[in-house]
């Protein structure tokens, strides 16, 4: 069947990739947490100067004195236990206080500036909520505009989300893009370069389709 052919030189590679995996044995030892942290931080050397049979034996036992990034990655691909450890480390890394917060904690004097910024954010958020509360389907020209606040809670669902722009996206462009959708930034950036944004549900939903966004985590605000 034409659909099933590989193209180009792919004989050994095809057999290699198609081979049924044997049940994986377990490692007796694993890279220490410090090595995994260094791997996450990109601080390990890329590869050893030379791979030797002794090094292969050390890798198979999980006992390498000078781990390199290649070896940690190969170990991770074959060791579910270390993959879980790495996932925990990544999570712990992500929940650490931001650089700005650490600065504030170390130097309370600059906290004043921080509170002022937080106040500005709160005002912006309040203005946004007021704006969405007032926005309703377009009024007919012959009707009197209703400038009073509604007595019932607004039906507009505001949604907040954390969005991380693609690394090559210009922040100005990103900001204009959010503005064009009626979305405002209420917090950030965090350590991932992510921003907390808020806007109408459909506007936030449209971010999922955007090529400017690398990651989006939605939160629903009641």
């Amino acid at each position, binding site marked *: 069947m034409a659909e099933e052919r590989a193209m180009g030189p792919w004989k050994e590679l095809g057999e290699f990739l198609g081979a049924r995996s044997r049940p994986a044995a377990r490692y007796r030892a694993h890279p220490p947490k410090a090595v995994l942290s260094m791997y996450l931080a990109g601080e390990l050397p890329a590869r050893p100067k030379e791979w030797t049979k002794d090094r292969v034996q050390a890798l198979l036992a999980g006992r390498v004195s000078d781990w390199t990034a290649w070896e940690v990655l190969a170990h991770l691909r*074959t060791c579910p236990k270390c993959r879980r450890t790495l996932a925990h480390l990544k999570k712990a890394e992500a929940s650490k206080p931001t650089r700005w917060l650490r600065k504030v904690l170390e130097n309370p004097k600059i906290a004043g500036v921080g509170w002022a910024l937080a106040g500005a954010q709160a005002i912006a958020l309040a203005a946004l909520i007021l704006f969405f509360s007032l926005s309703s389907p377009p009024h007919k020209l012959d009707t009197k505009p209703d400038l009073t606040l509604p007595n019932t809670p607004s039906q507009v669902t505001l949604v907040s989300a954390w969005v991380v722009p693609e690394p090559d996206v210009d922040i100005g462009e990103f900001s204009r893009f959010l503005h064009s959708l009626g979305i405002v930034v209420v917090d950030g950036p965090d350590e991932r370069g992510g921003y907390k944004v808020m806007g109408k549900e459909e506007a936030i939903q449209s971010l999922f389709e955007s090529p400017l966004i690398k990651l989006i985590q939605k939160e629903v605000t009641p």
Partner: protein
Amino acid sequence: MMKVEALAKAMIDLFLAHLIVGEEEEVKEEDVMFWALVYFEGLGRGDELKRAQRMTREILAYKRALRRLRGSPAGRPENVAALIIYNISHSGPKDLQKRELWENKVATNHSYSRIRNVEEALDLIEEVRGTYLTERAISEFMGRTVNLDRVARFVEEEYEVLVTKGEGNG
């Protein structure tokens, strides 16, 4: 203890992952040959050296084609990645469930431009193996039409050079 072929397999996947993300300088001939030999010796089915040489040549042919297309008007280097992904998808037993999942992912904006590092490329290798994707699906993933036959010809040419002149050109 961990099985040697499992570890060697992970290493060879790593070479392919580096080619997928376009880091061909990371794929060194002596390393590929070393791990290919470890893999085939681990399997222990005979002809280890010949098979390791052939696999090394195959990997190096993709590396050379990638390098050849870099900055060349003949095509884009990512086309080699497209061919590798296509071939990986045509390896192993067919898995229709995986294929459906992968196609849904592509339909929801998962594209080659989002594969930025080796870890993501390794996940992609796992994801596409056995999906038997069409050329059209690969083009959709790459975000443009790729003439896979043409790229395959480039890689074949490079493979022939390696066969006639030896591996020293990797």
